[in-house]
């Protein structure tokens, strides 16, 4: 019996699959299989127990399990520890180790009441002293925690106190009605009192999994915490493996060596290959990537507000979303608050290239030409830069695209070049997002914007204990960003996550990962 394979089928098939795998990071031009990428993770009833294998890019060979550190091994944190509070899907602050909290009428003294009967993995009982210790640990200048500045601007180490074993009190130097949301940061996990010196390797927390082994930039294992206060997790074990090369990570998934790729945004051709391969599929973290184009406020090019306004009016974010991200995300319309987050201003600015041209003429900048910096630092930056340059060309703006080395992009270009494409992960709570990225003088204010009215709005919002008028102030602040700031948000991109078809109930948003419910089918 002879098997007849049409030559075209054979060649076409193999070239397609190969080309696409190669295209994963080689910019090959593979033939793409006409597949659509699933929009949501599979849900279902997992088999109890099971071992999940997760491939992750290690932060560094010096990575640590100390969440306060800038080199924390991110994927372990949610499995090992809890915070006082966490975020739910629409950005609302919800209980974690704190059961409830309230403030005095001026929103400057905050009291958190803690969950009773919680134990650390070593058997010690969890108390208010642990919370005080953990927060002071984040504030410790020696640690250099990225969250330290945000917290230290509101209170010092002495301002957080244990009132009784299950009550913690913060005395803020200035009122902040959104204070609890700032404790949802993934740098604010609670560790046992006095454990700072060894927490980086012991990983002792109160979380749903207990550390069995951990090698920085190497493998590690966590096992189910039978006594977890919110019920035992579905899985018995999670094995973490470090794979630095993105293609190698995808290969490991396709070969069935791992079940999930953490912190890996598959590019479109690769996502199609993963979807089309038996045994593997794709889920997405919606709007996980926040792409930005900051115009430098202090630069000569963008000192004129008319030029900045023209830049915004000149481009259609929907078009950029279609060309650069194949529609996998949402148009931003220059509002930095991701769609779906509570408190987002519902407003779409105009798209009017003609008026953009007129504004430039008015400003004496007809035929405005400048350089747009981009980099391979993240896969989508350059497609966005190209699509943006195409768009503004219609308004008579010429952007010369310059590709900068990924190594030095954030050290030598960021906050220094007049125009660049940048990105953040979404997941910051509303108040932190606006304060950290847009307030005058903030270390993350990437457009160097300075606007007194905006800063005052944020202060007024923080001091406003009335939920609805406070939200109104945050929305006014967003309006100001859209209308006047030199900061553009063309779009939010979905993160395409590769995983095994056996994985069910995968849920991830912002900096939250559901370790409790995720499981494997038989």
């Amino acid at each position: 019996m002879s098997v007849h394979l049409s030559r075209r089928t054979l060649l076409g098939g193999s070239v397609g699959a190969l080309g696409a795998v190669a295209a994963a990071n080689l910019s090959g031009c593979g033939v793409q299989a006409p597949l659509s990428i699933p929009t949501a993770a599979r849900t279902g009833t997992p088999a109890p127990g099971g071992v999940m294998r997760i491939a992750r890019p290690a932060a560094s060979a010096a990575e640590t399990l100390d969440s306060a550190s800038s080199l924390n091994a991110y994927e372990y944190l949610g499995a090992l520890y809890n915070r006082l509070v966490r975020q739910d899907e629409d950005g609302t602050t919800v209980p974690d180790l704190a059961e409830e909290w309230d403030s005095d009428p001026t929103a400057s003294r905050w009291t958190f009441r803690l969950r009773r009967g919680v134990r650390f993995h070593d058997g010690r009982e969890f108390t208010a002293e642990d919370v005080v210790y953990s927060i002071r640990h984040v504030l410790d200048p020696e640690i250099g925690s990225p969250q330290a500045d945000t917290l230290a601007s509101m209170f010092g180490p002495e301002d957080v106190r244990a009132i009784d074993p299950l009550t913690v009190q913060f005395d803020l130097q200035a009122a902040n009605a959104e204070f609890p949301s700032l404790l949802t940061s993934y740098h604010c996990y609670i560790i046992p009192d006095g454990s700072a010196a060894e927490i980086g390797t012991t990983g002792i927390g109160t979380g749903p999994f207990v550390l069995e082994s951990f090698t920085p930039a190497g493998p590690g294992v966590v096992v189910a915490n039978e006594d977890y206060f919110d019920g035992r997790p579905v899985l018995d074990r999670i094995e973490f493996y470090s794979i630095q090369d993105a293609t190698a990570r995808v290969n490991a998934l396709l070969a069935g060596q791992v079940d999930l790729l953490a912190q890996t945004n598959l590019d479109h051709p690769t996502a199609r290959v993963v979807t089309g391969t038996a045994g593997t599929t794709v889920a997405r973290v919606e709007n996980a990537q926040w792409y930005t184009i900051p115009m430098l406020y202090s630069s000569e090019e963008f000192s004129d507000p008319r030029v900045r306004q023209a830049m915004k009016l000149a481009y259609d974010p929907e078009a950029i979303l279609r060309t650069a991200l194949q529609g996998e995300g949402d148009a931003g319309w220059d509002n930095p608050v991701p769609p779906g987050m509570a408190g987002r201003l519902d407003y779409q600015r105009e798209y009017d290239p003609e008026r953009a041209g007129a504004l430039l003429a008015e400003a004496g900048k007809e035929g405005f030409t400048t350089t747009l910096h981009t980099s391979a630092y993240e896969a989508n930056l350059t497609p966005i830069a190209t699509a943006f340059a195409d768009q503004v060309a219609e308004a008579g703006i010429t952007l010369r695209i310059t590709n900068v080395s990924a190594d030095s992009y954030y050290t030598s270009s960021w906050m220094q070049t007049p125009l660049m494409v940048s990105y953040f992960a979404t997941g910051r709570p509303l108040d932190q997002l606006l304060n950290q990225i847009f307030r005058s003088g903030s270390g993350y204010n990437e457009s160097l914007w300075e606007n007194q009215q905006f800063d005052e709005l944020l202060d007024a919002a923080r001091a406003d204990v009335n939920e609805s008028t406070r939200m109104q102030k945050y929305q006014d602040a967003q309006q100001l960003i859209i209308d006047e700031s030199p900061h553009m948000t063309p779009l939010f991109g979905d993160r395409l996550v590769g995983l095994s078809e056996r994985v069910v109930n995968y849920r991830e948003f912002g900096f939250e990962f559901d370790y409790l419910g995720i499981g494997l089918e038989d």
Partner: protein
Amino acid sequence: MAQLLIRRILTSVVTLLLASFLVYFATSALPGDVAQQLLGQDATEEALAQMREDLGLEQSVWAGYAAWLGGILTGDLGTSLVSGEPVAGIIGGAFGNTLLIAVPAIVIGVALSLALGVAAAVRRGRGADTSISMISLAAMSIPEFVIATLLVLVFAIAMPVFPAVVLMGDDAGLGDLLPAVWLPVVTLVLVMAAYIIRAMRSSTIDTMATEYALTAELKGLRRRDVLLRHVVPTALLPVLPVIAINIAWLLGGVVVVETIFNYPGLGALMIDSVSTRDLPVLQAIAIVTATVYVSVNLVADLLAMLIDPRQRGTTRSRAAAPKEETA
């Protein structure tokens, strides 16, 4: 002969010194802030300043070079900026892992390539020659990452016989590595075979055309004996440097192949150290690689002298020591 040896070894030492100089100054001139890389993008200014001081980044490049060179000579390669472990240990482990794929690749690759080269030469112009030439040419033209990806696609994904990557990283034991070495080995053999096959083929053809080979054949020696005893040893000479370069390339850690297979060897270590600006590790790898290149080439030269008396002769006439003839 002894003088020649000494001269050859001295040249190697000078080459290594030059290499160390270039390595140190090139890595020092790399753009990017080591402290920033180590602490991450979110690091505070104070933490960065502290780190720079701790690392001795403020001292002069010349003083740094002198200290570094002194360290190498006394066997102290320094400590990694990232993990804080001694560099010698880190490199030793990675080099061992690289050997695990390099040695089989060298043994299989060189033996196979030489045999195929001779076979192609003997059957010059016939079907076998054409196919060997064409296949080796094709393998030579395909970049190793494509070959590696193809092999993974076929032998790890379509037919899961071998693992696609090494999961355990530096913690990988022999048991983890043994099943994982075969795809890298095959990739490397395919990539390096072509050069050796082609060199061996043309060299064998040239040698078969020499008068002494013809004489041997006309004297009635069997073809096989002519080939193995008279042609191949001579034909090997010009191929030795080609083999040497390939061996050095393999021992230096094959960056692309190791990265694709997440193989914890010297090449992957190099990529990691570049991205984390771990200069002591990077410099040590560069110097280890340079040493490997220099010594493998030295060995190849010495081997050539051993096989070919003519190579000893050229310098001996200058040395004017005819009594060494008996040596």
